[in-house]
Structure formats: structure tokens, C-alpha cells
């Protein structure tokens, strides 16, 4: 299978005074194969949104390589080649905010085709019709502006615009948080359809482990800017090796009173204070398995056995 997206050794240090206070990335690497969905999992401060922005060419990185379909994405956001832009498109957390409030949906779609040069003018009406059909949107919505749409419709138009560029790679940033439960279910069905029918490659950024379990083939777990565990979803979420991944899974309360209470009682005492990242393993202060070596050297992700895709950055548990 070919590699659609490759990230190698990316580091970002955040300038203080920005909104996203803690986020920084250190030496992050991952690959997404064509047609697959890779989930980037982590909590606030893990750097998952920053990484997504670096990949999209919206954020400057200090070091490392990002390749989209083998094309280098320039570290300077203003010099990212247009070829990259039309291959990979974002779906932002708040899809409503990503659509210009002054513009009608039709004009936004036409603009995306125009800027990317993906569809010649004569073909555009047909292409728009096809996109609306695929995304389950009614024609008359084209004349509306974003404030006249429901949450689900906003997201679908944001998706339609992304696909109008001809992109076959999507970055979905917490795609369900802005939606109510019925719209969430519809959105998940839609993502599955896009993957199945169009072979869309997806980078899914989420803290929602249930969504990740359903939607992702592979998972990368980030903790305070570093990859702590990665591999196929069934392995990482089924038999987690890194103590942080285990804590994450243990923190989700199942919809079953007896089980939820058992899980709650079994939780380790944890202050979860976001103090400066310590030297050595960032998770060491919270880790139940911590040994002295953890506080000295920063562990790199290692395959859990030779040749395994499942890797964890914990010398104690691997």
C-alpha cells in the first residue's frame, strides 16, 4: 500500500502568548497509508491540533519533514505548493466558522474549484450537483449563507468544499463536537461512506476514544507533544502498552452502572497538573510504572516485538 502522508521528526515550539498555550511537538513521526484512517489521539496540550495545522501548512514547523503524496510541504506556510493544497483539505472543529458568513454556499464551492483549478467552469454546475447528492444536501441550500444552515448542513458544506478541490485526503479535527447526537450519527455514516466509496485518506484528530475505535484503522497517541504509542486501532486500544494509553482508556466511563463504578473506584490518584514538562518521560510524574530511568532519558517509540506495527514509548512495559 502506498504512503499518502508522511510526517518525520517534526518539532514545533510554541511562542508564548498564543491562544493554545502549552502545545508543542517534539520529534513526531507518523505515516498514513492511502485509503486508511489514522486517528491522532490526545488531550489538551498534547499537540494534536498543532500537528494537524503543520500538516495542512497552516503552522510553521521548526524541523522535520511533511510529505503529502511524496511532495514536500514547505515549512513556511506561505510557500506550500498548490499541488499539496488540492490534495489535502481540513474539516475544522467548528465547520460553521470555517465558512465565510458573507458568502452563499454556491459561491464558496465555485471559489474552491476556481482556486484549486480542479474543475473547469463549464463542468462546475454538474460537479456541484454530484457533490450535493453524495453528501445528502438539497439544491436549494446553495443559495443560503452559513447562518441559515443547521450544524449538520454546515459540516456537509465544509466537506463539499474540501472535496470540490479534488482532495482525496482529509484532516478531520474533532468532527463530532459541534454536532448534536443525531447529526453525529449521520456524520459518522458519511465519513464511512466517503472512505468506502471514494477511498478518502483521513487523519482524524480526536480525544473521543469511542469515535476513534469505530472510525480509525490506526492510532497515534500523543502526550505533551510526543508520540507515546502507535499502531493498528485494535492493538492500541485493545491491548494498550503505554501507561498513558491505559489511563486514557480507564478514564472513559462505560454506559453500565456496575462497570462504570468499578472503573471509577480503580482509577489511580492523579493530580493531572499541567506543570512544565519534566526531563525524561513527560508522563513520569503521573505514571504508576515509573522507574528512575524514566526521569532521565526520554524513551522513543519501539515496536512491542520485532516487526510489529504496534509501538510504544515505554521501556518498562515494552
Amino acid at each position, binding site marked *: 500500500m502506498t504512503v499518502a502522508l508522511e510526517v518525520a521528526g517534526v518539532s514545533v515550539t510554541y511562542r508564548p502568548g498564543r491562544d493554545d498555550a502549552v502545545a508543542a511537538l517534539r520529534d513526531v513521526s507518523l505515516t498514513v497509508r492511502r485509503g486508511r484512517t489514522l486517528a491522532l489521539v490526545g488531550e489538551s496540550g498534547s499537540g494534536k491540533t498543532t500537528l494537524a495545522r503543520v500538516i495542512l501548512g497552516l503552522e510553521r514547523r521548526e524541523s522535520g519533514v511533511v510529505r503529502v503524496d511524496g511532495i514536500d510541504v514547505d515549512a513556511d506556510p506561505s510557500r506550500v505548493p498548490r499541488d499539496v493544497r488540492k490534495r489535502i483539505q481540513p474539516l*475544522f*472543529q467548528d465547520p460553521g*466558522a470555517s465558512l*465565510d458568513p*458573507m458568502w452563499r454556499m454556491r459561491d464558496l464551492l465555485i*471559489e474552491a474549484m476556481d*482556486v484549486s483549478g480542479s474543475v473547469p467552469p463549464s463542468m462546475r454546475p454538474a460537479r456541484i450537483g454530484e457533490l450535493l447528492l453524495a453528501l445528502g444536501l438539497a439544491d436549494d441550500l446553495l443559495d443560503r449563507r452559513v*447562518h441559515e444552515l443547521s450544524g449538520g448542513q454546515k459540516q456537509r458544506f465544509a466537506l463539499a468544499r474540501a472535496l470540490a478541490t479534488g482532495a482525496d485526503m482529509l484532516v478531520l479535527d474533532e468532527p463530532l463536537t459541534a454536532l448534536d447526537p443525531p447529526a453525529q450519527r449521520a456524520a459518522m455514516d458519511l465519513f464511512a461512506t466517503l472512505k468506502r466509496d471514494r477511498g478518502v485518506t483521513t487523519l482524524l484528530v480526536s480525544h473521543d476514544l469511542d469515535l476513534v475505535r469505530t472510525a480509525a484503522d490506526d492510532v497515534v497517541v500523543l502526550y505533551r507533544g510526543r508520540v507515546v504509542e502507535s499502531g493498528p486501532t485494535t492493538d492500541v486500544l485493545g491491548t494498550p502498552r503505554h501507561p498513558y494509553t491505559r489511563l486514557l482508556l480507564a478514564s472513559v466511563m462505560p454506559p453500565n452502572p456496575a462497570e462504570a463504578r468499578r472503573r471509577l473506584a480503580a482509577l489511580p490518584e492523579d493530580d493531572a497538573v499541567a506543570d512544565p514538562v519534566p526531563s525524561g518521560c513527560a508522563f513520569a510524574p503521573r505514571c504508576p510504572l515509573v522507574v528512575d530511568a524514566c526521569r532521565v532519558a526520554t524513551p522513543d517509540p519501539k515496536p512491542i516485538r520485532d516487526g510489529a506495527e504496534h509501538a510504544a514509548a515505554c521501556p518498562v512495559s515494552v
Partner: protein
Amino acid sequence: MSRSDGPVAILFKDTSARIAAGILLILTLVAMGADVLPLADPGAVDTSRRFAAPGLAPATMTLSAEDAARLAAAPGLAPAMRRALFGDTVIAPLFGTDELGRCLLSRTVRGFRLSLAAAAVAAIVTLLIGTTVGAFSGWKAGRTDALVMRFVDLADSVPVVFIVIFAVAFLRASGITDPSAKVVVFFATLGMVSWITMARLVRASALALRSGAFIDASRALGMSEPRIVFRHLLPNLVPVMIVALSLTVPRILLFESFLSFLGMGVEAPDLSLGTLARSGFAAFNPVDPRVHLLLVPGIALAVLLLALNVLGDAVRDAADPRLPRP
């Protein structure tokens, strides 16, 4: 109201906006067409009717032989049109007369003309300089923004009234008596102060918009910076631009009247609402207050300001598609 209604259609569904726009249109037409209308010569002295009170009867009069001769001799298209349309008929001093028996109606119309010109200059300078400086500063953000905004602070801290006094004094001292030189200085000063509010408001709005998701989405689509600025940033700044205009223009009108009232703005024979109020104030005395000399230009200014404010408010609402429509 259908979704496809444009901002103009939305604007004119609003009754108060229609009235305000109508008033402004009429005032502008009257001021611009003052030379065609059968108005008395604003400078024509008639000591037989000093301090006449306002009144409707008679509504029209015939020009004095002297004035008729002057009108007949006046070159240009406007007097010719007036002669063809109205002959020797002239509107009586419905608003009363001043200390020299000059028609206050005619004088107010001329005063309006200058006030409107001041408003127009302020609007144009504000839109050009204020929007450019504000949008540039907010869009660039960071160090550029800090630098530009310090410059704006500097411009804002210039004591404008003193500058006008110096300029007027300088003109007097250097023996320049051409009244138009004074008007130029006057308008230049208005321009200097008028754009600052606009720059600040537009900058704050641009700063907030530039980190918005739809600007990020535009970048991710590979749009060039000019395209993002002109097609996505600026249209979203229009509502705040209108707010700034509706703050600035009335302020400049008042400022103009204030300066002229103090004798530092327009001077005879040019007229503005400020100079009219000034002479009204001079003619004021407790025994015979002759309030109409103060009231007429005052009410004229108030009507103008009110109409501008109402219209500005309605235009802002109409320009923002997000607002719910009744």
C-alpha cells in the same frame, strides 16, 4: 422576506431607514441645487426687515429690481436654469432674517452645503485612510501592527484645535486673505482627525477575523493573500466600517460647526451651520432673544445628524447577513 433579498432591499424595508434616507436625499439635492432654486441671495442686505421672525405668509415674493438685474447678469448654467424655471419669483424669508435682514432660509441652505461637504470629506478620508491602515495593521498583526498602531496613537494625540489655530494665525500673519486657502486648511485638519476611529475599529475586527477558521480554510485552499484580503477579509469588515462611519461623520459635522462657531473654521462670505449659529449667538440678547437665529441652524444640524445616525444603524444591520430579519 426571502433569503435572496440583497442588503439594499433589506435596508429599504425599514421605515425609519427610508425616512432618514429620504431626508438626507432631499437635503443633499437642495444643497447641491441651491443656485437653481428661487432662493434669495444669501448676502443680500435689506435693513428694512432686520430680525424678521419666521412666518409662512407670504410664501413667495418678487425679486427686487437690483437683485433681478444681478441674476440676469449672472453667468453659468444654474442661474440660467433658475431664470427659465422661476423667473423673478423668490421664496420669502420663511425662517426669518438676521441682523442685516438677510434671508435665513437661503443662508441655512448654503451653510448646509458646506456641512455636507465636510461630512463627505470626512467619509472619504475615513474610508480610504482609516480602512487601509486598520485592515493592514490588523491583518499583518504582530510587530507591524504594534508599529502602525503606535503611529495611530501619535496621530490621535495631536491637539487638533491648536493646529487649526496655528494654521489660521499663520494664514493671517502671512497676509493670505483668499478665503479658499482657509477652507483648504480647514478640510485638511478634518481629514487628519477623521480616520482614526475607523482605523482602530477596523484593526480590532481584522485582528479577530484573521485567526478565524474561515480564513484558515481559505489558506488551506491555497488562496493568495490578496484574494483572502479582498474577497473574505474586507467584506466581513463592512459592518464595522459602517459603524465607524456613523460614529465619525456626525462627530466631524459637530467639529466643523464647533470650529466655525469659534471663528476658526469657515468665514464670511462662506457659510456653514457653525457660522450661522455664531451670528445667532452674537445677536442673542435677553430683552429680545431672536431665538430663531440660533434655532434654525441648530435644528438643521440636529436633523442632519439624526438622519445620518438612523441610516447608519440601518445600513450596518442590512450589511450583516447574519442578523435575523423581521
